[in-house]
């Protein structure tokens, strides 16, 4: 579709990106003008150099991703929240975890949730099922996790299913517990913001005792063990210029498959603690430098809003039919707190686990699925629309017109462009561009990336 062909200026060139055609290309101004004319004017004869590009752009391409429809048949995963409580007081926590009630999911609830999910999977002829654990800190209610894993494995074997386990964790536990996780989980997303000084500052324990060494030791256990280690590192104004240093440290000490650098999302807690999000220009530049360091060690770098290998209508499990079960048996589409959804004017409740069955409200499913990038005017003309998809539905406000980008948008756009340039083998240009603030602003601030909507070139 011609509404999915994007162009952004990169110094004196133009980056052409057509995600539905899996196309990225770098052209000069003449090339960009010719492409635009050829797309809009049927009888225009383009110069030879752009003809191969045009041939691709005129081919059907893949269909734009669409929100799911119909009853839930293939949930993205089953999410279990064993507890909302946590033993840390991270200064930027989305959950204000240590202030949450310490209610735990009962073993019966965990069992029923898993059973209901597996039966759904069988009915849909699925072969793989995924069970993810969230919190608070999920291992703060470790017996629930130990039980759930054992039950899920047992039933998966009996039902002929293959099961994967994933957890998002703060890494504070004994070494034997950590080894159990390493041996029983497929992926662990470990929050580790950086070396000891950063970790202690940003992620202190409730008791105020030091915990960085424990997390570092456990990260090494995860590195050594079979579990895939994904390190999630929160980046702030204070740490953004240390990203290359953090990357070198991670590459030297651990064996993660991926490091996710995420800019701080401001919250009540972070404001109270005096933590600020990083400057998006600094973030983009340092993210790229960090990723080059990690790449040498065979480690991927990720920013959650820049997922170029996948086209999606929602940034997160919302809209992908994830079934996230709270300790009280509520089934939600999102693992954030209900109070947060309400603040954002959204309702992510899908139903309840009752009498061992999922009682899901189909209207609620439809309502949740509507949270797609197609409802976000801000994203219509942005080259990141099928990757970022507008970011977090709760925390990223998109009630703005196209081109009114905020910090999250800017860093997403810049990292996306840098990634595309790298994919094209244009590292020199990429670095020159990243070092040129004016060029970055020109690229990032243009009100529309749609090639056909450009009034001037």
């Amino acid at each position, binding site marked *: 579709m011609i509404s999915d062909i994007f162009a952004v200026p990169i110094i004196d060139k133009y980056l052409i990106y057509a995600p539905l055609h899996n196309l990225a290309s770098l052209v000069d101004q003449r090339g960009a003008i010719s492409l635009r004319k050829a797309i809009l004017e049927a009888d225009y004869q383009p110069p030879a150099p752009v003809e191969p590009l045009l041939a691709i752009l005129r081919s059907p391409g893949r269909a734009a991703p669409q929100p799911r429809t119909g009853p839930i048949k293939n949930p993205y995963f089953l999410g279990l929240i064993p507890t909302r409580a946590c033993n840390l007081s991270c200064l930027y926590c989305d959950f204000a975890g240590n202030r949450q009630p310490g209610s735990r999911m009962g073993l019966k609830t965990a069992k029923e949730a898993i059973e209901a999910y597996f039966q759904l999977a069988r009915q849909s002829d699925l072969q793989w099922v995924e069970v993810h654990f969230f919190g608070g800190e999920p291992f703060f209610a470790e017996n629930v996790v130990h039980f759930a894993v054992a039950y899920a494995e047992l039933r998966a074997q009996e039902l002929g299913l293959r099961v994967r386990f994933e957890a998002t964790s703060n890494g504070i536990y004994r070494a034997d517990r950590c080894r159990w996780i390493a041996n029983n989980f497929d992926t662990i997303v470990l929050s580790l913001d950086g070396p000891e000084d950063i970790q202690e500052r940003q992620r202190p324990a409730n008791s105020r005792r030091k915990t960085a060494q424990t997390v570092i030791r456990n990260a090494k256990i995860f*590195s*050594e063990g*079979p579990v895939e280690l994904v390190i999630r590192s929160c980046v702030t104004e204070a740490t953004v210029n240390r990203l290359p240093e953090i990357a070198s440290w991670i590459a030297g000490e651990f064996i993660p498959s991926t490091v996710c650098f995420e800019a701080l999302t401001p919250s009540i807690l972070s404001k109270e603690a005096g933590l600020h999000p990083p400057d998006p220009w600094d973030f983009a530049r340092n993210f790229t430098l960090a990723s080059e360091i990690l790449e*040498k060690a*065979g480690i991927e770098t990720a920013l959650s809003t820049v997922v170029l290998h996948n086209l999606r209508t929602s940034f997160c499990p919302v809209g992908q039919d994830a079934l996230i079960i709270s300790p009280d048996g509520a089934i939600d589409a999102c693992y954030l707190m209900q109070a947060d959804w309400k603040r954002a004017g959204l309702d992510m409740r899908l139903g309840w686990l009752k009498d061992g069955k999922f009682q899901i409200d189909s209207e609620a499913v439809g309502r949740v699925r509507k949270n797609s990038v197609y409802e976000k005017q801000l994203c219509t003309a942005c080259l990141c629309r099928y990757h970022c998809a507008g970011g977090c539905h709760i925390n990223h406000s998109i009630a703005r017109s196209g081109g009114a980008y905020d910090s999250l948008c800017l860093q997403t756009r810049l990292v996306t462009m840098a990634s595309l340039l790298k994919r094209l083998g244009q590292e020199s240009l990429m670095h020159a561009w990243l070092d040129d603030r004016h060029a970055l602003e020109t690229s990032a601030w243009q009100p529309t990336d749609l090639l056909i909507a450009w009034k001037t070139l």
Partner: protein
Amino acid sequence: MANLVISARCNMACPYCFASEYLDGQSGNIPGHASPYIDLETFEDRLDFLDRSNIDEIRLIGGEPSLHPRFPEIIQRAVKRGKRILIFTHGLLTESALTSLEVLPPERVTVLVNMNASRSGDEPSQKEETHRRKTLLRLGGRVQLGFTIFQPDFELDFLIPLMVETGCQKSVRLGIAQPSLNGRNRYLHPKQYISVGRRLADWAERAGRLGIWMGFDCGFVRCMFSESDLERLNKAGAGIAYRCNPILDIDLKDKALHCFPLGDKFQTDLKLTLTAGELRAILEDKAKPYRRAGIYKECTICSYKQNGECMGGCLAAAIRRFQLAKININI
């Protein structure tokens, strides 16, 4: 085949060495302990063992085999027995060692030079590189280059001009640094294998165009290569193998080991009546209970392993996944 330790000493400090931990106990640094070098009478016994086993190639290892004070005589004795010689060395050979090898026709000797051996444990120094280059120039076609991969970002391009300039064989023997059982050496973790596989395939394309053959030592696994990686490797004629089996490393104390990374976990006495094949069978039997496992937890259900195409990686790396059972239940 069987590797014979003739020297427990080495004057390098390669960070990935998986033999040093085992041989330290045989290094002769402690007074009253036996010499760190094989005596000639024992060496003759080793030659008898090879004859008995119908093995016509003698593979000399260490430590650093060329440090043996009677290295030239060792070589002569092997030649006298009609053995073809393969030496695993760091390549910084003394003049007498070089001379003793130079006189042998290339078809009777291969000197496998480890190109990333160093005294410092870091990159080889200029002096080491110069000395190694001298060995390559003197021995020419008798030399095969070896490289041990112990970290994901490795470079092989430096080997190409060396092959051209020194006339050594246009082939590289690649090894993955495996863990010694207590894991104190630097080694490539199985999680890093896939990125290494991709890098090897990248290099294979360049190497293949230049007619350079790549050989794979033990411990590689099928799943570290994507289909496209394999295509590129096959196109370059690489000698891909996914082996792990008893090497038969025979130490100075008449012990036959499965291999150095496994140390004394699987070993048997080198009885004078047994052949290499019989020793190998004993060691395979000892290792058998562990063979079900591989370096990844998925190895037990992998079709490549089940059909015998892949052994599931290095057994030492697989055994490092095991833990001692510490169970105590009070009823």
